């Protein structure tokens, strides 16, 4: 029997900087070229625009590489190559198409470390995440979809699948290589050819990926990668040869694309923003929930469309959860993305940092209570300390708008009905989290939450076999699994 303790809370051990970690930088070479051309028809091709733009590392604001700026003529050339390649690729047997995808998966695994370092340098995410999550899951997506290529008829009972044609794909900057894999793998498995545009701040791994396509011997024109900003994307959307547009990014741009495509009969899938509720009931395992909340909002600096950015805590445990969260925040290490001990890396761009700062300011102004741990941010680069807001009400901007940064808004509820009501009180519907010990409550909550993905007693888990995508203004269509495959094919 333990000795009787005096009636006061256990004291916390505080070591301050007594045992500070030494820097542990990842030093493997990233093999980033000083300049990248476009990848059209299997070849690196100088842009007809004759223009390149700088890609900088958000970790230290240093120039990483020069990226080609594709204009309309370049996009046209990419579509010409993809259209020419389609006639043969769509008739290539599923088994053969699958073999190319298997090769791509294996070659990506071979070069996983190099790709992880490049991803972290270019995008700012912690090396721990690009090494353990982005790159291996990207390879897994190719491996998974490789196996579908000769089994498509099984995905649509009673029917079979036929390819759509040339697919235009536009991806965001938060998971550059992984989003590329989510887009390209199912498209190719179904026999389509692809024009893909990475986000302008994160093109490096997409261009490095082109060398894998060459090494895999993928027929020219099956995958074409054009780089640039919004204008390049607009050229893709408008191109008459596009049978489908697949977009991942903000809800505002998604709506613009849907409006733009009106009347064209092009297919469209959208994976847009979110403002997910992460709901903690009083019977939840609180310590595990705290870890889940931290992973839910601080994973990838909060640059996650499905981030658990609205914490809904049952009133009876709200103080305990906030106290434990504040303590946990003190142990998060913010800094050099290439350091293997870093938990929170760099914000992807100055523009994004300013958006986060602006929304955080609005939170303070609207009367929410801000909590930030004391932490030293690097002098150069774009960084933001992990931030909690308590006393948040549903009308605050920080509870309604997608912040896309390491900022958590905490609200409380009393009954499950109130939790559902608050969770669903948003135009978004991408994801939600539920923490409770009660199985029947998980299933009930999962049914009532209007969200495409529900994580119960876990958060931010992804898998190629698991369909991902939103309800309401978080978009339509799914990526991954049998359901995602159907969005890249006609059911005939």
């Amino acid at each position, binding site marked *: 029997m333990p000795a009787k303790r005096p009636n006061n809370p256990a004291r916390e051990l505080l070591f301050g900087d007594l045992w500070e970690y030494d820097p542990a930088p990842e030093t493997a070479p990233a093999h980033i070229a000083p300049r990248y051309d476009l990848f059209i028809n299997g070849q690196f091709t100088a842009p007809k625009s004759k223009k390149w733009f700088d890609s900088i590392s958000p970790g230290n604001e240093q120039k990483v590489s020069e990226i080609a700026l594709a204009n309309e003529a370049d996009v046209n050339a990419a579509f010409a190559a993809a259209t020419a390649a389609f006639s043969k690729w769509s008739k290539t047997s599923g088994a053969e198409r699958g073999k190319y995808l298997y090769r791509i998966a294996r070659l990506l695994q071979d070069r996983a470390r190099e790709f992880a370092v490049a991803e972290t340098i270019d995008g700012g995410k912690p090396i721990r995440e690009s090494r353990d999550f982005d790159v291996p899951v990207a390879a897994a997506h190719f491996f998974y979809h490789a196996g579908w290529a000769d089994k498509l008829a099984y995905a649509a009972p009673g029917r079979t699948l036929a390819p759509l044609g040339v697919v235009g794909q536009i991806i965001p900057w938060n998971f550059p290589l992984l989003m590329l894999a989510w887009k390209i793998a199912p498209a190719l498995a179904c026999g389509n050819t692809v024009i893909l545009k990475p986000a302008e701040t994160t093109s490096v791994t997409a261009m490095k990926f082109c060398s894998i396509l060459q090494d895999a011997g993928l027929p020219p024109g099956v995958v074409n990668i054009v780089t640039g900003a919004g204008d390049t994307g607009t050229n893709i959307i408008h191109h008459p040869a596009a049978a489908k547009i697949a977009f991942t990014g903000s809800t505002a741009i998604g709506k613009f694309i849907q409006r733009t495509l*009106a009347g064209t009969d092009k297919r469209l899938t959208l994976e847009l923003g979110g403002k997910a509720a992460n709901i903690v009931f009083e019977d939840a395992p609180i310590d595990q929930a705290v870890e889940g909340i931290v992973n839910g909002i601080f994973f990838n600096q909060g640059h996650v469309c499905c981030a658990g950015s609205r914490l809904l805590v049952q009133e009876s445990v709200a103080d305990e959860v906030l106290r434990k969260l504040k303590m946990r925040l003190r142990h998060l290490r913010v800094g050099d993305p290439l350091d293997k001990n870093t938990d929170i890396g760099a914000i992807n761009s100055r523009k994004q940092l300013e958006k986060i700062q602006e929304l955080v300011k609005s939170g303070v102004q609207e009367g929410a209570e801000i909590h930030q741990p004391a932490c030293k941010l690097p002098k150069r680069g774009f960084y933001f300390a992990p931030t909690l807001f308590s006393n948040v009400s549903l009308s605050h901007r920080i509870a309604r708008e997608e912040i896309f940064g390491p900022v958590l808004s905490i609200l409380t509820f009393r009954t499950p009905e109130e939790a559902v009501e608050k969770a669903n009180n948003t135009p978004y519907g991408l994801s939600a989290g539920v923490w409770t010990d009660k199985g029947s409550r998980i299933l009930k909550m999962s049914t009532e939450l209007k969200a495409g993905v529900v994580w119960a007693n876990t958060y931010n*888990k992804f898998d190629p076999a698991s369909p991902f995508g939103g309800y309401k203004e978080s978009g339509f269509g799914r990526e991954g699994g049998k359901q995602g495959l159907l969005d890249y094919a006609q059911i005939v």
Partner: protein
Amino acid sequence: MTRLPITKTPKCFVGGAFIRSESGRVYEHKDSAGAFVCNIPLCTRKDLRNAVEAAAKAGPGWAKRSAYNRGQILYRIAEMLESRADELAAALSLTNPNSAAASREVRAAIDRTVHYAGWTDKYESLLGSVNPVSTPHFNFTVMEPMGVIGILAPEEAPLLSLLSMILPAITSGNTVIALASHSQPYPSILLGEILAVSDLPGGVVNLFTGTRTDILPTMATHAHLRAVYAAANKSERTEIQQGAAEHVKRTVFLPSEKTIDWFADDAQGLYQIRHFLEPKTTWHPVGI
């Protein structure tokens, strides 16, 4: 002395009740010989909004019904259609004097209803999945109804096409608001009367009549409609899609440039139901 028969005032079926248009307007319905038949409500966007409200109210309850129960209710609709088959055929014959074609359409509409009655407890096992993720989680995808679906039915096959568009949506627990054929509205009036006695909860199917120009813009932009299912020409599709973009609404189109064979087997089935489903994926750790 011959007795003067009582003629029926056509009313729309909204929220389980029979309504005239809130606008107080009607349009003349004439038969193929040009003789006056009746006045049809000329519904407006206000009626549409009321219908959406009724459909939204009915939605959660309908979605919560067991699949077996929804199946039995759809089957009951077929029973009620069969019992009024002659009347439906007569209604179709008003605008199309070919009585053989009218009877054929009624039979097809009844059989279509029975077809979907059998789907309510089966589509989930074919479209949903348990997903073999590589982490220790139990991961499964269920197919959920979207919510309220707006339907613009075509002019032709006014009974069969209308039912063929409504049934796949309500099979999975969606509720619908549907604008019937403008030139051949009378079958939709009868359909409302039949649905009213079919154990179908009020508000699950809301039918109204009027012109597309009055209804289409509001149907495209209404925030509480989760999807629009429309037989539409190119300019209508453009307008609907532009409006739908305001709230990222799903759209499913039947282009009117292509002739649809409403009698064909592929005018019904699993993939029509799938249009109005949202896959929801749930993760849970496996452990003790």
